[in-house]
C-alpha cells in the first residue's frame, strides 16, 4: 500500500491495517464535495456542521473543498450532541463540546452533517434532535468519511467517503492531523487484540 516515507514509521507502530491513507482521505473529501454540490445544485443556502470531535475538522475540510470548487464561501460550524445522547446514563459523564452555528442560522437551509464514522446511527439520531432545538432546516444530509455498517436505527448517509464492511468486534480508528497531530489515516483493528 502506498504510504509516504514520513508516515511509515508512525503507521507501522500502530496496530491493525490502514484502509485509507492521507491521499485517499483527501480524494474522498473532494469527491464528496462534488457530490454535495451536484445534489444541492450549488452551495447557496448550505450549512456544513461537523459533529465533535473529528467531524469538526472534516467539516472544515469539506467546506474548503466546496469553496475551492464553487469559488464562494460556505457557512460552516459545529454541532455538539453530548446532551442528546441516549447512553448518558450508561457511561461516566462526558464533557460537552462547543456548538457553533453560523450567524445565518439553519432555518430553511440545507444542513450537511459531517462525522468521521457512521456505525450504530445513534450519534446521528442525537444530532437530528439537537438540530430540532436550533431551528428548522429545509433538509438535512449526512456526510461521513467511513460507513462501517451495523446500524441500530433506520439512518443512512447521503455522502460516504468509503464503505467499509466490518465485523462488530473490529475497531475503526480515524486519525486526523488537526486533532491527533499525526498523518491522516483510517485504520481497522481486530477487537480481540
Amino acid at each position: 500500500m502506498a504510504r509516504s516515507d514520513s508516515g511509515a514509521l508512525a503507521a507501522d507502530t500502530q496496530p491493525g491495517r490502514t484502509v485509507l491513507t492521507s491521499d485517499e482521505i483527501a480524494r474522498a473529501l473532494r469527491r464528496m464535495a462534488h457530490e454535495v454540490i451536484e445534489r444541492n445544485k450549488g452551495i447557496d443556502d448550505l450549512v456544513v456542521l461537523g459533529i465533535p470531535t473529528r467531524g469538526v475538522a472534516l467539516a472544515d475540510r469539506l467546506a474548503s473543498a466546496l469553496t475551492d470548487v464553487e469559488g464562494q464561501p460556505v457557512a460552516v460550524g459545529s454541532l455538539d450532541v453530548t446532551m442528546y445522547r441516549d447512553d448518558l446514563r450508561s457511561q461516566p459523564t462526558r464533557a460537552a463540546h462547543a456548538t457553533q452555528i453560523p450567524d445565518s442560522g439553519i432555518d430553511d437551509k440545507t444542513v450537511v452533517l459531517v462525522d468521521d464514522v457512521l456505525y450504530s446511527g445513534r450519534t446521528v439520531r442525537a444530532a437530528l434532535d439537537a438540530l430540532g432545538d436550533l431551528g428548522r432546516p429545509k433538509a438535512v444530509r449526512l456526510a461521513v468519511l467511513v460507513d462501517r455498517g451495523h446500524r441500530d436505527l433506520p439512518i443512512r448517509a447521503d455522502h460516504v467517503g468509503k464503505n467499509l464492511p466490518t465485523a462488530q468486534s473490529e475497531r475503526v480508528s480515524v486519525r486526523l492531523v488537526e486533532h491527533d497531530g499525526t498523518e491522516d489515516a483510517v485504520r481497522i483493528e481486530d477487537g480481540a487484540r
Partner: protein
Amino acid sequence: MKHLLSAADLSRDETLSILDTARQMHEIQQRDVKKLPALRGRTVVNLFFEDSTRTRSSFEIAGKWLSADVINVSAKGSSVSKGESLRDTVLTVGAMGVDGMIIRHHASGAPLQVSQWVDASVINAGDGMHEHPTQALLDAYTMRERLGDLAGKHVAIVGDLTHSRVVRSNLMLLRTLGAQVTLVAPPTLMPSGITTWAGSDGFAVTYDLDATLPQVDALMMLRVQRERMSGGFFPTPREYTVGFGLTRDRLRTLPDHAVICHPGPMNRGLEIAADAADEGRSVILDQVSAGVAVRMSVLYHLLAGGES
C-alpha cells in the same frame, strides 16, 4: 463525583470541567428553545429550609432546562412547620425516589448530614454560615469569562466575612484555580480562626481596603448581613461605608480592567455605592445569569452520567 457539599470537594480538573460545560450551557440560554434532554426521567427536589429567591429559582430553571422533573419543598407550608425533623423530611422525600436533592439549610453541615441518610446526590445550596459552593462556582465562572485563566489573578473579598458562607467556598475554589486571594474586613467581622481554615492556605488578610484596591483584578463585595447580626459589629452604617464600602471615590483607585462582583442581594449605599453597582466593570447581573448555566453544569455532572 456524587455529591457537591463543599468547594473543597472539587479538584482543579473537576472545577475546570464544570466551568467549561457551563459555558456551553450559557449558550443554550441564548437559544429560542432553552431545553436539553440530558436529565430526562430524573427527578430533582429543591429542599429549602431557608428563604431564597435567586438560588432556588436558578436551580429550578437549571433542572427544567435539562428536562429533569423538579419539585420545590420549602419549610414554610410543609410538614417541617408541623415539627417534622430534618431526617424524617429527607427520608420521606428520598423514599419517593428522587435522584437529586438540593439543600439550603440554616445549620452548617446539614447537607453533609443528609448525604449520609439518602441515596440521592446531594447539592449544598448554602448551609448556615458554612459554604455555598455553587455560588463560588458562578463567581469563578463570571470572573474567568472576563479575565481569562484565573491562575495568578488577584481577587479581594471584602466585607462581612464572619457571617458569609460565600467567602469560605470562594476562597477554596479560587485557591484551587490558582488565584491569589486577599480577605478584607473590619476586625469585628473577621472570623477569629480564619488563618486555620482547612484547605485554604496561601491567602492574605488585611483591614486596609484602600491599600488593596489598586492591586486587584477582581473585587468581590459581600453583603452586610444585618439579619444575622446581634448588634455591635460596627458603630453605624455610615462608619462601615467610610471604612469598607465601595464608594465612588474608591472606585477611581480600582484598575480599569478589574471586575466588581457581588453575590447579592445588595445593600446599595452601604457596602456598595449605586455608581459602582451599575458601572461597566460591574458583573453583578452577569453573575445572576451565570447562576443558571453553572447550576445546569453541576446538575449535569452529578446526575447525567452512570456509575463510572
